[in-house]
């Protein structure tokens, strides 16, 4: 399945890009499973993201979500730090 991943603020800077589209097998159907898989496969910033998971928020299709919520083909997945607007 295809997942479009977005990164914001400090996480965007850590990765060096804002957006990444990936093709991934159906079994990686939650933000947590997907992040674990990518940190093993591609290392680098994915490992750092996994290690700071407690202070990272996820959104699926622009809705704040849990790490265990399900992902499906075509979803937009975002990783970002806690909100500091206003």
């Amino acid at each position, binding site marked *: 399945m295809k997942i479009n991943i*977005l990164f*914001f*603020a*400090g996480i*965007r800077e850590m990765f060096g890009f804002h957006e990444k589209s990936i093709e991934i097998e159906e079994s990686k159907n939650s933000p947590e499973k997907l992040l674990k898989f990518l940190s093993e496969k591609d290392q680098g910033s994915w490992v750092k993201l996994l290690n700071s998971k407690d202070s990272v928020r996820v*959104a699926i299709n*622009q*809705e*704040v979500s849990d790490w265990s919520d399900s992902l499906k083909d075509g979803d937009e997945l*975002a990783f*970002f*730090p*806690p*909100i*500091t*607007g*206003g």
Partner: protein
Amino acid sequence: MTICIQKKLFNIEKIISNLRKNKPTIGAIVSFIGYVRDYNKDINTKKLKQMDLEYYPGMTEKALTKIEISAKSRWVLEDVYIIHRVGKLFPNEPIVAVIVASQHRKNAFEACEFIIDFLKTDAPFWKKEISDQDELWVENRIEDHQKKTSWNIKND
């Protein structure tokens, strides 16, 4: 009900006068404006030069709409206008304004405070403070989450 996410400065007088043009029955308007202060919150030796405001196009608008709808379900309101700036901001410039119009002032006061409290925790904006010494993403404040939670205790 209007949501504006924009780079440019805003004029609160103009926003209010446009709001009232559409609804001349409005009797009370309460507004909140937040500003970029010219020093860093925690380390006063640093001088703030610039603030970068990042947001999540699409999700930010949805989150603000959800907050507005939630406020309108709790209080009888005439109109709500939320404006939040993004991009490069400079010291002393406004960041955000929440303008609430109602028949009775108590509703406008409560709804305006409710909206800014939830905006601070639920609308995806991120601030980076660029000082004469470094560039740092602002950490979120525990007090903001406490303020948000207090609404649930009081109203749910």
